[in-house]
Each structure stands twice: as structure tokens, then as C-alpha cells.
């Protein structure tokens, strides 16, 4: 029987611990297990052989820690070859009747990926690709990715395996006692992602004993359509007379695991603390039991890093607001590569009940592939909602799908052959559920039956790629009812028909229906209700609209999906508060007119954002000039706070609250000035960044806020910024001041390098530095023009540099 046939049939036995056994054989602390492939091949071989003789079908070659992050390519190759040789010798020498296989065993590379760490996704892929190519050339039977505790790294490794060999890939993750990966993945989210990428078997190993892992394995069994594996530790380690012992013996270990075979577990072995004895006990405990066949789960599931979401059961809200169509501000932000607008839209939609976020960054004049990739990365750093990647550009779709951590909703494919030829291969390779629009080369059929016919053709084409029906969702295209009285009816009929005939989930962009009409939400919310009644699975809509959300939540409540009307009551409770907040912003200051301006000054000094905003607004409404307010009230208030900070009578949180209150007032003033003064960045341009290698940016962000308060036009390059990028920005903006931050002694060299580059190539720019490890002397040593011991000092420096720069050429 072939490897895959055996795996699918089960029970299939893996091996147990290696490190602990090598330690018994004399592996010293600080010595790596993989180095023994070269120095003690006989001992490594003997352990493999003992596992085969205990009943193991597949041993993991002793390559767990071999990775280009730790070793040179040559060393990787030597160690992997030696490891496979050991396993192969054991296979030949073992006195064991079962079929025997060897896996290339790979663990985490030891570096955390962005955004939590600094390793780039593609660098992680490249590293794994290197060792996988070596392993494949050594003739292993499969790739075994194990003990992976980060979903993004797991994705990188699996993608590397799929791109660099034809071997089956088994993927095993390490969960904490809370049922989550270290970076937050769950059995359901991992299942969705790994199956999408084509893993041949998935499951769990290490970290816990069999009892604690059982509920996690059961969740895998409930979610997975591929074979599930399990490799627990021998319980938890404890000290016994100076020796480490594990608290679960072979028989108890075997019994716990064997109980899962009847529930569908088919691939099993042990991890830390287990020995050949455990594997033998396991084969005996399972005996002649055979797991029930693997059942294909017929569900439409998408996932983010840590959340899986099923579509087609309860209707979900897909937030539509990250889309530049008709949004001038967003378009401008995207043109400037500024993601903060996108990120804030994400957070506000999530807070108002969006369950998926549509992400569309396509606007003329931008590099959409690069922009979509960066939007996905940044969004996934701050939200755990699954994303709907919305682009018509296949290369943008590929880049976004490649780095998307999870299983995305792909928006969209349609019945045009050319589009299917471009999109389906991407869905096949990277995984994803795809929204299919019921249109083709001939346009949008006017009748519902025509749209159904296209849907069926799309399903046939997807089948050719092996894309499951459950991963196709249909969008029957909402047309504007003002243009065609029957438009909505046909869309709804097609929706109901497709839902019934194909069983597939459905999606609609709800808002279009009311285009060109007044009070659009009135019409839109009723359309939504009708669509939901016909079986709509996902509504692409504006979650910030109470009327639209009201329709969605009411539908859930009225169709038995809202136990005790809890969701409805919570939603209703949020309504009056919203209205009150909206109206409170206006009238509060209406009574008292005179003390308004001094009120503004006080509000900034006290750090009262709402008051600052209100006082600024009433002062403007009373006819005060915006610039006068800034010069006469806000700046003096900031100065007072700044002085207090310098004299240590005011402290950082107070300074920041004042800065935020000032910012709130500025915003109001700018809004009023809006039309007159499009260009807000009329201050002195300043570039700031946290230097390469450093990912701490709190200090830099505080400096940014204060500089902006003081009227500088700040361009913030973020953290971990290479010297060349800083130079590029300084040159482009002809910035006269640049601020660099570094927190660690280890990143000061990068700061010195940046300072030097700037002095050399942009001599007009004065560089100020700051950060935890820096001192006045240190700053001098690396030839910075100034040292900012805190945020206020940075403001003073920037002011001084600007003045000097204006006075004459700063050399």
C-alpha cells in the first residue's frame, strides 16, 4: 500500500521522543540533537531502529532543528543527509514487518514572523524551501512540519513544501492549555488554512499530555476533511531526585490515545518524554481497532489568524467601508501609502459588528498589488476578523493571498473564461473561498435562470481544479432599482434559485440597490431583509449604519438565531446612547459664550479632549478666527504644559492627554478651514523613524504627536526602517529635520549608520536622536546633531533646527 493509502486507512504509527533519548545517551546541554547525526550516527540509528521495532510506520529523521536561520546551507545539507542515512539504515536493519517510512522533520525556525517579530514571510518561505529541497533529494517519503506554534510560520513552511517538492506534507501544531497556538490560532482556523493550502494530514503534538490534548484533537476531528494526527508528550515533566520524569506512563498514555481512534484519529505517536515502550503500548492498546473513514466536511469556512467563520448557516456582516470608490479621503490616504485610515475603518467596523472585512484598495495611480499586500499585512496585525480580498487584478490577488494568514474570502471570480483561468489556480494553490459573480462574456443575464446557468458553469470549471463546491459562494449581482424596476426582484429570485439548486452559500453587495435614490438606507435595509429571507449568507454592507445593522440583527432575532433576544437588546441599548452622543456634541456650550476661549486653553491644559473639541467648535461658530484660536489659546496651553513637563511638575500621561486634546481642537479648526486650506501639511517637513532592527515605537509615536501639535508636517516611516528608506524620504520631502529612535544598544549601530548616510547624502538635514539607551554623549559619538531626552526636548530641537535652518545654511 502506498504511503498516502496507509495514512488514510490508519491506524498509522509515528515515533516518539528523540531529544530525551539522546540526552540519556550522553547529549550534553548546549549540544544540538542534529549534530549527533554526524558525530554519533550509530546512536541515532539505534533509536530509530527501536521505534521501528516497536511498531512505528514512519520515523522522523533527526532534522528538527536544521534550518538556514541556524546553519549554513552546507551544514544543513550535511546534517540532513546524515540524518536520513541514519533513518534509512535503521529501516533496513529493523526487525519489523510493517511498511516503513522516513519523514523530513522540521520544527520552527527560531525567529518570529512579522508583525510580532521581524522575519519577513518570504524569508521564512525561502529558508524552509532550502531544507525541503535537500530533504526531498535525500529520498524521504514525506515532509513532517511539527511543533509549529505560529500559524504564519506554519503557512510559510507548508507553502515552501508545496512549491518545492511533490511529497505529502503532514502538519502538526503545538497548542497551549488554552487550546490556542502561541500566536493565537485555533484548531478550526488552522484546519481551514492548512486544508486550503493542501496539507495531507494535520494535527497536534508536544506541549501537553494525551489527556489535555484530547479535546483539541476532537476539535480537529470535527473540522477536518483530511486525516488527523496526534503526538502528545508523556504528560508533564517533574523533578525526581534531580532527574526529569514525566507523569504519564506508557499504558495510561496508550489508553488515552487509543480511545480517540474510534472517533477518527488515525495517525499517532509520542513527543517529549515518550520512548519506544510508549509506541509499543500504543499499538497494543489500539489492537485491531480501525478508525472510521475520513468524512469530507461539507461546510464553507473562512478563517483569520485565530478565528474560523462558517458561511451559509447564520448570515454574516461583511464590512464594505475599506473601498476607495466615492471616498476622497481614503483615496488620498492610499495614494500617499498611509494605512491609518484603512486601519481605523477596520476597527470601527469591527466594533459595530462586522464579521468579515472587505478590503479594496484599487484606485488609479497606485501600485495595487503592493498596496493590497501591505493593507492585508497591517490589517492582520490589528484585527482578527477574516478578510475578503477584493480586487480585479490577479497579481494583486496573488500577493495578498500569499501572505494572508488564514483562509481568505476571494472577491471575485465570474463566468468569464479568462477570469476563471486567472483566479481558480490561485484559489487552488493558496486556499480560499471564492465569491463568484453570475455574469460572463455576454454580461449579466436579465433573468434569474440565466444567472443560475452561469453559476452551474462556474461550479463545473472549479471542479476541474479540484476546488470544492463548498468553497464557492455566489453573488447574483445587486442592480440599481432606480434604473430598472425589476432589478431587485431578479437578483432575489436568482439568489433563492441558486441557493436551492446548488446548495452553495451566497453573497450580495446590498448597498447598490438604492443608488441614486434619497434615504438610501430605508430601501437598502428592506432589500437586505428580503435577501436574507431568500437565503443570503453574507451581506456586504455598511456596519456603521444603524438601520442596516438593525435589519440584520432583527432578522437573526426573528429567525430563532438570537437566544433570549440578547443580541437585539444589546444593539437596541447602543442606539439611544449613540444619538445622545451625537447631539451632546452641539448644545453643551451653547449657553455660556464668554469664557469659551479661556475654556479652550483650560481644556488643553487639563487634557480634556471632548471639551477642547466643543470649545473650539463654539468659538468658531461665534465667529472667532481659527488661526487666532491656535495662536492665542492652543499654543500657549501647550507651552504651559510643555514647560511643566520640563520642570517635572507635569508627567508623560498628562502631557499626552493635553497633546490629544490639542489635536482634537486642531481637527475641528482644520475641518472648518477645510475647503480653504486643502493642504494641511504646510509646516516644516520632519521625517521620523525607529531605526532598522528595532520594533519599539511608543516613544517615537509620542514625539510624532507633539511635533504635529507644534505645527510640523511629520512623515512617520514607522519602525524597523532601513537607512536607505529614511534617506529616500528626507530627500523626497527635502526635510530639514529627521528624528531617529532606538531602544536597544544593539540597534544603535543601525542608528549611527543612518545618521552617517544622512550627513553624507542629505547634508541640509539635521538629525536628532532619542530612545531608552541613548545619552548626550552617545548621540555625539554617533554624530547626531541633537539628542532629545524626551518628547518635549525633541520639539525644542526641531524648533531650533528649523530656526537655524532658516537663518542660514546649516552645515
Amino acid at each position: 500500500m502506498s504511503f498516502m493509502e496507509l495514512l488514510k486507512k490508519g491506524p498509522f504509527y509515528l515515533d516518539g521522543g528523540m531529544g530525551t533519548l539522546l540526552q540519556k545517551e550522553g547529549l550534553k546541554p548546549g549540544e544540538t540533537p542534529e549534530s549527533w547525526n554526524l558525530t554519533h550516527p550509530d546512536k541515532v540509528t539505534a533509536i530509530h531502529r527501536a521505534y521501528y521495532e516497536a511498531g512505528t510506520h514512519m520515523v522522523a529523521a533527526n532534522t528538527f532543528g536544521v534550518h538556514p536561520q541556524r546553519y549554513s546551507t552546507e551544514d544543513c545539507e550535511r546534517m540532513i543527509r546524515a540524518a536520513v542515512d541514519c533513518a534509512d539504515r535503521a529501516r533496513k536493519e529493523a526487525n519489523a514487518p510493517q511498511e516503513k517510512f522516513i519523514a523530513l522533520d522540521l520544527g520552527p525556525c527560531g525567529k518570529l514572523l512579522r508583525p510580532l517579530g521581524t522575519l519577513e514571510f518570504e524569508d521564512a518561505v525561502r529558508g524552509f524551501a532550502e531544507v525541503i529541497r535537500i530533504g526531498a533529494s535525500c529520498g524521504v517519503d514525506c515532509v513532517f512540519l511539527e511543533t509549529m506554534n505560529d500559524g504564519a510560520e506554519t503557512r510559510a513552511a507548508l507553502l515552501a513544501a508545496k512549491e518545492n517538492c511533490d511529497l505529502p506534507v503532514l502538519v502538526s501544531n503545538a497548542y497551549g492549555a488554552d487550546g490556542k497556538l502561541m500566536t493565537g490560532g485555533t484548531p478550526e482556523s488552522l484546519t481551514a488554512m492548512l486544508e486550503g493550502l493542501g496539507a495531507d494530514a494535520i494535527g497536534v503534538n508536544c506541549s501537553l499530555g494525551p489527556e489535555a490534548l484530547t479535546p483539541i484533537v476532537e476539535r480537529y476531528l470535527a473540522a477536518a476533511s483530511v486525516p488527523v494526527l496526534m503526538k502528545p508528550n508523556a504528560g508533564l515533566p517533574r523533578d525526581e531526585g534531580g532527574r526529569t520524569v514525566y507523569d504519564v506512563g506508557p499504558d495510561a498514555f496508550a489508553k488515552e490515545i487509543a480511545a480517540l481512534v474510534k472517533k477518527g484519529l488515525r495517525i499517532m505517536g509520542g513527543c517529549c518524554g515518550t520512548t519506544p515502550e510508549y509506541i509499543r503500548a500504543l499499538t497494543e492498546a489500539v489492537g485491531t481497532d480501525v478508525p472510521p473513514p475520513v468524512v469530507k466536511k461539507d461546510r464553507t469556512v473562512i478563517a483569520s489568524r485565530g478565528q474560523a467563520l462558517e458561511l451559509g448557516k447564520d448570515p454574516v456582516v461583511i464590512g464594505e467601508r475599506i473601498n476607495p470608490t466615492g471616498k476622497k479621503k481614503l483615496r488620498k490616504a492610499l495614494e500617499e501609502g498611509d494605512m491609518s485610515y484603512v486601519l481605523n475603518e477596520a476597527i470601527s467596523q469591527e466594533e459595530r459588528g462586522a464579521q468579515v472585512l472587505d478590503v479594496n484598495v484599487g484606485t488609479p495611480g497606485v501600485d495595487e498589488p503592493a498596496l493590497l499586500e501591505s493593507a492585508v499585512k497591517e490589517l492582520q496585525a490589528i484585527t482578527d476578523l477574516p478578510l475578503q480580498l477584493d480586487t480585479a487584478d490577479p497579481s494583486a490577488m496573488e500577493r495578498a493571498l500569499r501572505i494572508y494568514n488564514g483562509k481568505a474570502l476571494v472577491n471575485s471570480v465570474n463566468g468569464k473564461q479568462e477570469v476563471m483561468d486567472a483566479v481558480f489556480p490561485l484559489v487552488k494553490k493558496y486556499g480560499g473561498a471564492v465569491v463568484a459573480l453570475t455574469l460572463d462574456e455576454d454580461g449579466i443575464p436579465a433573468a434569474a435562470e440565466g444567472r443560475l446557468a452561469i453559476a452551474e458553469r462556474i461550479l463545473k470549471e472549479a471542479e476541474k481544479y479540484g476546488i470544492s463546491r463548498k468553497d464557492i459562494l455566489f453573488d447574483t449581482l445587486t442592480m440599481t432599482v432606480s434604473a430598472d424596476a425589476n432589478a431587485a426582484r431578479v437578483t432575489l429570485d436568482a439568489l433563492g434559485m441558486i441557493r436551492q439548486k446548488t446548495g452553495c452559500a451566497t453573497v450580495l453587495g446590498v448597498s447598490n440597490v438604492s443608488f441614486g435614490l434619497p434615504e438610501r438606507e430605508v430601501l437598502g435595509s428592506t432589500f437586505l431583509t428580503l435577501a436574507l429571507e431568500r437565503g443570503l449568507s453574507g451581506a456586504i454592507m455598511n456596519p456603521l449604519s444603524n438601520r442596516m445593522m438593525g435589519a440584520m440583527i432583527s432578522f437573526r432575532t426573528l429567525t430563532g438565531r438570537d437566544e433570549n433576544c440578547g443580541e437585539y437588546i444589546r444593539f437596541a441599548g447602543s442606539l439611544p446612547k449613540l444619538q445622545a452622543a451625537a447631539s451632546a456634541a452641539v448644545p453643551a456650550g451653547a449657553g455660556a459664550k464668554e469664557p469659551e476661549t479661556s475654556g479652550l486653553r483650560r481644556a488643553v491644559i487639563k487634557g480634556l479632549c471632548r471639551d477642547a473639541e466643543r470649545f473650539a467648535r463654539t468659538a468658531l461658530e461665534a465667529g472667532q478666527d481659527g488661526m487666532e484660536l491656535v495662536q492665542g489659546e492652543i499654543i500657549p496651553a501647550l507651552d504651559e504644559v510643555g514647560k511643566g513637563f520640563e520642570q517635572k511638575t507635569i508627567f508623560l500621561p498628562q502631557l499626552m492627554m493635553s497633546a490629544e486634546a490639542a489635536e482634537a481642537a486642531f481637527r475641528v479648526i482644520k475641518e472648518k478651514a477645510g475647503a480653504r486650506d486643502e493642504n494641511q501639511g504646510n509646516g516644516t517637513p520632519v521625517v521620523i523613524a525607529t531605526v532598522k532592527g528595532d520594533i519599539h515605537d511608543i516613544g517615537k509615536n509620542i514625539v510624532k504627536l507633539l511635533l504635529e501639535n507644534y505645527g510640523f508636517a511629520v512623515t512617520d516611516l514607522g519602525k524597523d526602517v532601513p537607512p536607505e528608506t529614511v534617506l529616500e524620504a528626507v530627500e523626497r520631502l527635502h526635510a530639514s529635520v529627521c528624528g531617529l529612535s532606538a531602544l536597544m544598544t544593539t540597534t544603535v549601530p543601525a542608528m549611527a549608520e543612518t545618521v552617517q548616510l544622512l550627513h553624507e547624502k542629505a547634508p541640509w538635514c539635521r538629525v536628532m536622536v532619542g530612545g531608552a539607551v541613548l545619552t548626550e554623549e552617545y548621540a555625539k559619538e554617533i554624530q547626531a546633531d541633537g539628542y532629545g531626552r524626551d518628547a518635549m526636548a525633541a520639539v525644542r530641537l526641531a524648533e531650533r533646527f528649523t530656526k537655524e535652518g532658516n537663518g542660514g545654511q546649516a552645515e
Partner: protein
Amino acid sequence: MLTEEGVRIVELGEIPFDEKEILRYAMLPSFAPRPEELPLQECLEAAKGAAQCRAVWRRYPLKRDGEILDLGFTKTASKDLRRHLEGCDEILLFACTAGAETDRRIARAKMASPAKALLMHAIGAQQVEGACDKLCGQLAELFRDRKLTDRFSPGYGDLPLAMQKDVIAALDCERTIGITLTESLLMTPSKSVTAMIGLKEKKP
């Protein structure tokens, strides 16, 4: 698999919030008035459930070879550490982290406002420091027949930060509690601590 002999993992969970400590980490001295609109409660709400504090520790014999300290997992010539470990014959090496979710919540707060980000940082710091205290309490109990020194971390005094590499490897941190080092020796997740504690004879 790779877990070295003697490495112990301790689950410390979420540490109770301590507003006073949090404000101290946010650089607000205890005598200063708390700004009226400081969004502390909002941030505490946003941080709830984020921290998953975990620690890993290991005991090593301490040997001296002239000016050199042999810590069991590495050697060092640090004078400050030698002074700190005066009279000790063993050390406890540990690493502790508040976990990845804490970093994520901080990143999210950054979007809202710098003041919130500052507070979220402070909450993270209080969590990991509180977790270290809790761990040290447990260790003091476990080694109650010995006297324990304070904590001493790589980067303190003349003890080089480069030692982080040895510490992370010795405790198998990547696998045991998920701490990794960047090229510039920053720990990820960022709210993480490594340190040593000396053990010595208890004076009667």
C-alpha cells in the same frame, strides 16, 4: 523532542491589574494627579484576557574560575553579576512572557491614540513584571531552605545583552513559551523578561 533535561514550564495566566503600578509604568508618579480623561478604564477593558503569562526556568550549579563565572549554560566575566551572585553556589535562570496577544492589543491601541498605546504598554509591563513576581514567589517557596537574590538580567550593568542568545537557547524558549530573538536581540513577544536569581546558604 528537544526539551532539555530540567526545564520547567509554569503557567501564570493573567495577573490582576494593579492601577498604581500601571500608572507608574506609564511614567506617572504616584504623587501626580491622574488626568481626568485618562482612558485607563477603557484600556483595562481592552487589555482584559490578553495576557497569557508563562514562564520557564532551570537550575544550574554556579562555578567560579578566577574572574570568570561559569553559569552552567554560559560563562561571563561580568563584574556586576559576580558582585550580585556573591556567596551563591547555584542560579535559577528564567524567562517569562505576557504572550503575543498583548503585543497585538498594543498595536491596536496605537491606532486609537498615543495615550492609549502608552497605557497598553504600561499594562503589558505590569503583567509581565507581575508574572515575574509571582514566579519568584513560587521559586522562593520551592527553595525555601535557600536564600534567593534579586533578579539580574542580561543588559544590566556590564552583563552583555548578547547573553540573551544563550539564555533563550538554554531554556528552549522558542518551544517552551514562545519567546524568540530578533537579529538585534529584541525579544518577541515584546513584553518578556529573562533573568537570573542566585541561590545561597541561608544564614541561621
